Structure formats: C-alpha cells, structure tokens
C-alpha cells in the first residue's frame, strides 16, 4: 500500500514538473525577444571532456565574432553550454535545462550516443539541431536535425575517394575492429566506394575488443597480399600497436586512418618516428595556412589562455556560422516560436553554402553535409595539411 502511495506521489510530482517545463518553454520563445538564444550540450567533465570543452570554446569564439559584427539580422546571440558528461540521460536533462533557459536553437550534442537521445526529444519539440561532431548515422534522423562533420559511413566513402583521387595506392589492406560499429561502418562504406575508385581490397582483417593487442597475423596477411596501403578505421590506441608491430616485422606500408587516428602523437612513450607519414582524414588542423583558420586560431588563443583549437572547436565554430547563414537567409527574428524558427532554418539549410574552417559546405535534405574531405599527414612529429 505504501509503495503504491509512493508511486502515485512521484507520478504526480513528475507530471507537475512536466507541465511546468512545457509552460516555460511556450513562453520562452517570445519572452526575451531581443536576443537569439543558442544552446550547446556536450561533455565538459569526464573522459570525453576535451571534446565538449573545445566545442564550447569554438562556439564562443564564433558567437563573440558575430555579436561584434552586429549579430544575426541585427539581433545579438546568447550562448550557453550545459554539461552531459557523455551520458545520454544527463544529456536529456541538459536539454530540458536549456529549454527552461529559453533555447531556440541547439548546437549539439557533441558525442554520438547522447546525441541520439537528445535528437529524439528535439524532434518532438521541433527544435533546430545541428551537431558539430556526432558521427553516428542516427544522430540526425529528424527533419529538424543537421550535421556538420562527416557521418561514420561518409568517412569511409570520403577516405576511398581521397585515396583514389590522389592516387595514393591501388592495393589496400584493411584492419578493423569487428566489435565496434564505428570501425565496421567506415569499413563497409570504404569497401563500397573503393570499387568505384579502382582500388583493390587485397586483405580484410579483423580484431575484437577482447583481442586488440596482437596484430602480427593481420599484418602478415596484409604483407603477403602485397598491399601498398593499410587502411585503419580504428582508434589511435590500437593503431599505435599496429605501427610498432609492423615495424618489428620490417613491413612499411603507407598508413591511412580516419578521425579516430587523431591523438596518436599524444600516446606516452611512443616512438614518434614510427608515426611519420601516417595520413588521416580530419576537417581541421591548427597549422593550416588559410587566413580564416589563422585568425580563428589566433582569436582562440587570445581568449583561452594560449590554447590551440582541435577539430571539435572548428566544427562548433562552423556550426554557429551555419545557423547564422540560414537565419539570415530565412530572415528569422527572436520573437518567433521555437518551432517556426526550426521550420524556417531547416528550409534554408539546403540552400546555403558555408565557407567555413572545415571547408565549403552545403547540406542535403537528410541533414548530411557535403564538403571536400581534408586530410593531414604526420611530418616531423606534427600534423601537416595535405
């Protein structure tokens, strides 16, 4: 009996909370009609904090620039980032907190799994969402949701395109993690596109999260297949072992990775000379020479204690500018409701072309970005644009 009472009371509590949230949201669109409120969600603490922190800072740089230049359609922007600790449940809580604050558009979330959860909520609210860095396909299932980075399968397709167009290799071996959807997704898309690019996949070797230390067999198979290039759609921890074991075997193929390779130079005690020549796709490098990148790096360093921005910061910067471009084209104003803003922005997203830090970007109706892949190569222990 007591349990029932408890349950009943908590239901009432939950319901009342629900109505309160809903009410707050309905008013928020019109209450503070002089500014645009852009919210961000991502891990600011915990294991993935580096990503969320970079997104927060990159977006802040963009917001400050836009405000200094007169804002969007003459209205200033407010930016607020909430922490989700890379946890789906906390991410939804952060989303609700931002709605109470009066958020009208969302840049986020930063990581894939929380993004899928938040996107489901955002679809219900018809809240405009652009994720700077959520790579899983399901992050942008709704018509309200867009993506700035490449999705997992797109990374595979673009890698094959890049290798084919630049004639880096014609015989490729793949070593992938069959227990990880990120790795398998990239591998499948890479294989599909390789056929169109005249790339022969001569070996396809797997490992799992339970056996990710010994790669000699996979390397031996790759070596015997005559592959000139080893495609590694995996994270840098395993890649660091692969390059050492290949070196032990006297096998020196070209190496190509995806964004998971970013970080290999940070592995403690790793002999960095082994990393020389590794290529991987990444949308942004801090030592790129174009004027936009340089001014971004400079502004970022001035604002944040001489820190060097990583790709996540550039993704967030571009995401804010994408909102600006679409908002100006659609002529939205802060006194519109969240849902109206979303419809207007979503209609214009497919029309705009954004020249951002991560390339010249257009969007298709599914929310996926189209841009040229950018790759870097490790030379003398630093990333260098290719």
């Amino acid at each position, binding site marked *: 009996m007591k349990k029932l009472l408890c349950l009943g009371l908590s239901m009432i509590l939950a319901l009342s909370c629900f109505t309160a949230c809903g009410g707050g949201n309905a008013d928020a669109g019109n209450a503070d009609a002089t500014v645009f409120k852009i919210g961000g969600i991502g891990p600011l603490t915990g294991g993935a904090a580096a990503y969320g922190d970079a997104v927060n800072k990159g977006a802040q740089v963009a917001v400050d620039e836009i405000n200094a230049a007169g804002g969007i359609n003459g209205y200033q922007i407010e930016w607020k980032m909430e922490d989700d600790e890379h946890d789906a449940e906390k991410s939804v809580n952060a989303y609700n907190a931002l709605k109470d604050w009066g958020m009208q558009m969302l840049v986020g979330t930063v990581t894939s799994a929380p993004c899928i959860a938040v996107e489901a909520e955002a679809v219900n609210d018809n809240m405009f969402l652009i994720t700077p860095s959520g790579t899983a396909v399901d992050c942008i299932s709704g018509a309200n949701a867009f993506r700035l980075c490449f999705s997992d399968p797109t990374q595979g397709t673009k890698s094959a395109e890049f290798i084919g167009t630049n004639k880096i290799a014609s015989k490729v071996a793949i070593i992938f993690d*069959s227990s990880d959807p990120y790795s398998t997704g990239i591998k499948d898309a890479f294989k599909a596109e390789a056929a169109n690019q005249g790339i022969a996949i001569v070996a396809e070797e797997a490992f799992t999260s339970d*056996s990710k230390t*010994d790669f000699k*067999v996979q390397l*031996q198979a790759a070596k015997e297949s005559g592959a000139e290039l080893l495609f590694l759609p995996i994270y840098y921890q395993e890649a660091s072992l692969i390059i*050492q074991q290949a070196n032990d075997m*006297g096998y020196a193929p070209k190496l190509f990775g995806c964004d998971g390779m970013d970080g290999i130079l940070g*592995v*403690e*005690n790793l002999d960095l000379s082994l990393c020389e020549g590794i290529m991987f796709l990444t949308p942004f490098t801090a030592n790129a020479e174009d004027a936009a990148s340089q001014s971004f790096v400079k502004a970022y360093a001035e604002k944040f204690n001489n820190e060097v921005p990583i790709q996540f910061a550039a993704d967030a910067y571009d995401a804010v500018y994408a909102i600006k471009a679409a908002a100006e084209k659609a002529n939205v104003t802060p006194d519109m409701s969240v849902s109206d803003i979303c419809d207007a922005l979503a209609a214009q997203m497919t029309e705009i072309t954004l020249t951002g830090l991560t390339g010249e970007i257009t969007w298709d109706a599914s929310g996926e970005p189209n841009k040229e892949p950018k790759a870097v190569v490790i030379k003398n222990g630093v990333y260098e644009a290719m």
Partner: protein
Amino acid sequence: MSLVSYLINGISLGSIYAIIALGYTMVYGIAKMLNFAHGDVIMIGAYTVLTLMTGAGVNPIVAILIGMGVCTLLGITIEKIAYKPLRGASSSLAVLITAIGVSYFLQNIALLVFGADTKSFVSVVSVPAITLANGELIITGTTIVTIIACIVIMTTLMFFVNKTKPGRAMKAVSEDRGAAQLMGVNVNATISLTFAIGSGLACVAGVLLCSAYPSLTPYTGAMPGIKAFVAAVFGGIGSIPGAVIGGILLGVIEILGKAYISSQVADAIVFAVLIIVLLVKPTGLFGKNIQEKV
C-alpha cells in the same frame, strides 16, 4: 614460410600465457583457490617497471628486480588481507568472489594513480632481431627472450618444487593440507611463499607482455589473465608442465586460427578447443585424476 612465422608468433604469445598460467596453477595447486586478481598484479608490475624506467631512469634489469619485489609484497599482502581470513570459510565461493573484488580494486587504483590513457611501454629487451630466409622471416628479440624466459622459469620451478625443502613442503600442502600440518609443515608460510613466487612471476610476465605488445592501460592484465587461466585449465590445473604446454598450445591455436580460419572468430576457436578438451579429458591434458578414498 608464413606458417613458420605464425608458429613462432604463436609460441611467443603462448609463452607469455604460460608464464601467467604458472602463477595461476601454483596458487591453485597449493591454496586450492582461483586467484582472479593475478592478471591485475601483472598490470601493476608493468606499471611499476615502466614508471621506474621512464620516470626515475632506472636500469631495466634493476627496474624488473624492484618490480618483482613490489609484486611479491603485493601478492603476500593480498593473500594476508583478503584471502587468508576466508580460508576456513565454509564456502569456497567466498574467496573466489573476494578475488574478483581484489581484481576490480587493483584496476580502479591503477585508474586513479596512472589514469585511463594508453601508455606505450618501452621495450626492456635489447636483443637484436634475427632475419632468416632473405628477410622473409624476422624473429624479434622480444620473441626470443620470451621463449627462453618461459623455459628457464619452468625448469627452475620444477627443480624448486621437486628438489628443495620449501618446494617439497608445497607439494605436501597441495596433496593434503591437514597431514602436512601434522608433519610439521608451516602451511600458512608455505601458502604465502606460493603467492610470493606467483606474484613475482606476474611481474616478469607483465614486462614481457608489454614488451611484445607495448600498450599499457589499467585493463591490460584482464584479458591475458583470463586466457592464461584457460591455459592452466587446459594443461591440467595444478601441474607446472601442464601450464606451460597449455599456454603454448593456446597461443599457437589462437594465432593459427586467426591466420587460417578467420581473424574474427579466433577467440571463439580457442574456447571451443578448450570445451572439447575438457569434455574428453576433464582434468586437462596433464591433470592428475586423484581418486577419493572412501
């Protein structure tokens, strides 16, 4: 030539399993318990040696000796605090659960102290690689040292157990603890000694494991620990040569399965072989089938 290369890789991987399995099998043989924290003692040993070498610039040999000392102390401490009070407990399950607890405790301590980042291990082996058959076959220095270390450790242990007084005390305790005590064998000291030797070996195994696969995280010891446990059961738990043969066979099966069947189901093959062996010979390859006298 690739078959030879796979075999050598398999024996090398198997030798590491074998050294870890020796620790499992000795503790099981004498204390009749599965020390699931053994894999994590390996990890602690590897971290200790790495820290000494990169942080304090200690000579590798000295670092390994200090590391063995640290692991030995750790092993004895774990035994005294976590296992000994439970030795008389009615259920042997209690000590098994404690061992799992110790395993997680060590992993989390390492997470706190050393962080979750992958550290690349600096190889302690400076033996040059051997190149055979016009560069078709390269045997790394680590492989050679690992295989030699495994043989030396096995021979020394067998000599120790069969020919020395404390070794024979171990055998006596393993056969009948009560009778050994009546004959004047100090059972507690013998069990502590077993843990000391097993944990010292764990440090050597950790260093060899990380020299061959130079990636160190707080979870490095977990999977090799489980594989080595399988190897010990495979060879007949409690038997020293059994652990070595079991370990090497396991390594070879794993590598050959990966090479000739599929790299995706290598682990499944290993465990399938284990199931078949145990169905045919429940005590393992070298296990003694002791009849209970009524």
